[in-house]
């Protein structure tokens, strides 16, 4: 019996299980408050360009109210609670998130375009785990920094990106609250909905009013928050360009700053690597979340002796990568987050071709509506090419070859960024040798894109400073007095 084709049927997760309001206000002082700006913007589903909800656009006065609420909650309530009491709230939030995991996953996918498999299996469970993890630290801070005089900072202004909306919220809010700070958080304009759902969870958890405030809006809202004189701490995850502006805005203030910015991370395959697993690792490194990952392994370095074989295997593997509707359980690559980002990616792809690199895309059909991009490989790429130097933030991989260890270390480090790197080899000594020489905040060995709340994350050079996650993540939210 021969079967010419065996294709999987569509298997769409139901969107009906999510309750979405037609219009969202600002979450300030434990209440939903209409914006003083009186303006709203649309949130769009990138999978089909449909309208999802109207969202309040906070202006300076709205931000002022939110900071005031956070300040008052800090002075009057939150700073007076014991660590154990704060931990109790965090545990409660974590459990509520876990109970609503399915709803949060579907909402994340609807709003942001990432495959439901990822929001269900990676984003939401990790976000819950961050709250569980930092809940545990809340009453053990003194043990974490034995012999040091520590205290909370006060009001933390937090600005998060659109690639992992709820997960980045968890990375920011969980340690801030555990350390005794209150928070004003601004989600990215294209992905506000899970943050607003999180506000509902805070209400359900009985979190004291003003401890968490969510102000939605565009860059101007973020700028107002960063520039507000009454915040003590700024935590930003996003582009290096905006990170530089924020750093300038903080000059001459006492604001404590952490920045987690862009990357152009090197993924290195040595000739003795477990080749099939390395190829799979390359796929995960660059095509995870449509390549919208700050630590994406976007530059692949393959030792020359196995380069042809690796490329052949990558091309074959791309045939069974499904690009399509993000709610389909079989989708591997969903929708690009916004039209603007799709245009950026497409501009880089054209640039790569214009620069003389050789492009490969698999033969797959994309949905007619929505923002989609085929997984893309570039070979014959010069180290000096722009597609090899600049962060594309999309499913685009540049492939380079090398001959010696020395050469690959030089090439991998030859970047203004230094967020992450991957090393693939069966030789343990080479793993340790390379990880010492690579200028990257994280070096993964024989794996890629692995995250855990207990593991610190952050960059070198223009990829930012400060660490999030683990015990290190606590110190970003504490004042050390001696």
């Amino acid at each position, binding site marked *: 019996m021969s079967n010419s084709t065996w294709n999987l049927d569509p298997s769409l997760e139901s969107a009906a299980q999510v309750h979405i309001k037609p219009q969202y206000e600002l979450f300030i002082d434990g209440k939903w408050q209409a914006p003083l700006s009186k303006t709203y913007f649309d949130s769009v589903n990138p999978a089909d360009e449909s309208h999802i909800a109207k969202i309040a656009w906070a202006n300076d006065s709205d931000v002022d109210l939110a900071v005031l609420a956070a300040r008052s909650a800090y002075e009057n309530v939150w700073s007076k609670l014991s660590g154990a009491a704060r931990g109790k709230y965090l545990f409660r939030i974590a459990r509520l998130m876990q109970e609503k995991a399915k709803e949060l996953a579907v909402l994340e996918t609807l709003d942001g375009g990432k495959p439901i498999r990822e929001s269900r299996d990676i984003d939401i469970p990790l976000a819950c785990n961050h709250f569980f993890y930092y809940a545990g630290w809340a009453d053990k801070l003194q043990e974490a920094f034995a012999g040091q005089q520590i205290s909370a900072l006060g009001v933390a202004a937090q600005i998060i990106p659109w690639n992992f909306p709820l997960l980045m919220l968890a990375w920011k809010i969980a340690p801030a609250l555990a350390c005794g700070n209150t928070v004003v958080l601004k989600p990215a304009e294209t992905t506000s909905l899970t943050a607003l759902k999180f506000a509902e969870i805070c209400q359900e958890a009985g979190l004291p009013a003003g401890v968490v405030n969510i102000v939605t809006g565009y860059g101007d809202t973020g700028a107002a928050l960063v520039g507000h004189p009454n915040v003590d701490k700024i935590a930003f995850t996003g582009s290096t360009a905006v990170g530089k502006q924020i750093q300038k805005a903080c000059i001459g203030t006492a604001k404590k700053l952490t920045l987690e910015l862009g990357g152009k991370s090197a993924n290195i395959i040595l000739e003795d690597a477990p080749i099939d697993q390395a190829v*799979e690792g390359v796929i995960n490194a660059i095509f995870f979340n449509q390549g919208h990952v700050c630590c994406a392994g976007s530059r692949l370095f393959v030792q020359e002796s196995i380069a042809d074989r690796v490329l052949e295997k990558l091309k074959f593997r791309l045939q069974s990568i499904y690009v399509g509707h993000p709610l389909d*359980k079989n989708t591997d690559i969903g929708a690009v987050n916004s039209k603007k980002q799709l245009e950026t990616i497409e501009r880089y792809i054209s640039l790569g071709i214009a620069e003389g690199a050789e492009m490969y895309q698999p033969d797959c059909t994309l949905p007619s509506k929505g923002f989609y991009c085929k997984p893309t490989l570039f070979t014959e790429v010069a180290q000096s090419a722009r597609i090899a130097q600049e962060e594309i933030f999309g499913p685009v991989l540049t492939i380079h070859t090398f001959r010696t260890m020395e050469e690959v270390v030089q090439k991998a480090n030859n970047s203004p960024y230094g967020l992450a790197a991957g090393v693939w080899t069966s030789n343990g000594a080479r793993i340790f040798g390379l990880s010492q020489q690579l200028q990257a905040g994280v070096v993964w060995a024989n794996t890629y894109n692995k995250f855990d709340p207990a593991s610190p994350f952050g960059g070198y050079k223009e990829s930012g400073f400060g660490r999030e996650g683990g015990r290190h993540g606590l110190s970003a939210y504490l004042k050390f007095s001696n």
Partner: protein
Amino acid sequence: MLASVSPLELNAIMANATSIDQIGTLERIARIQARSIKGSAKLQGLRMALSMIDLTTLEGKDTPAKVRQLCFKAQHLHDQAANLPTVAAVCVYPTMVGVAKKALGHSGIKVASVSTAFPSGQAPFELKKLDTLYALDNGADEIDMVISRGRFLAGDYQFVYDEIAAIKELCATIRLKVIFETGELDSLDQVRKISDLAISAGADFIKTSTGKIQPAATLPVVLTMLGAIKDHFDKTGQMIGMKPAGGISSSKLALHHLLMVKEVLGEAWLTNEWYRFGASSLANDLLMQYQKQMTGKYQSATYFSID
């Protein structure tokens, strides 16, 4: 023609076998198992799986009557519903080949015989050859030999190679499946090595297990073997068949095996010419799931005959 190999060539085969990362292998499998196989794809998959079964009885207490029953079942499984294919083969001991051959007549269902002192392989080489010749003389359509695991683990690759090559020479055009008994081979690296070795010695099919040792056909082992088949194909253009045997009793698991074949090797392997399941209880579950998919209702297991 007896395939032969020089010590240098053999060293190269063993040295070139790529290493296998256990954790990465498990992650790849988790991705495949996260796939949702529904609707018409499920029906098509169930039919495919049924057509790939080597219906098996390999027990010391097997009798001609038992083998005849199995052969009857093999010919009538697909009566349960319209458009069902027959199983691919019946797999028995050499002494039962004649019985099975007669019982299956012109049904098109093949008779596969285990050989080379199945399941342990612990017999002198000359006896293994006689064992195989006996099965061939009685009309076996396919031979499932076991390798000498002890020799392999001791590093005597030449011995293992020569044994496979000699049995293949006896089989001539009859297809030879080489059983590794991966449950005795310790690591995925070893599984990869024996796969490369057996393929170069002339195996037409590589097969995981005898069904007598646990674990048997696990997904990591099968994925590793598929990797060897793919690399051989890319290098030479020659297709090698795959037969997981033992431990696959549910339809869901069988469908994930097939999806793995599709993603790792491609659709060309999705026929019983290149892929088989060595199983006995899988067939009934496939039928039950097929009925469920057609009628929306599960039937009691008592409606499916056990033999």
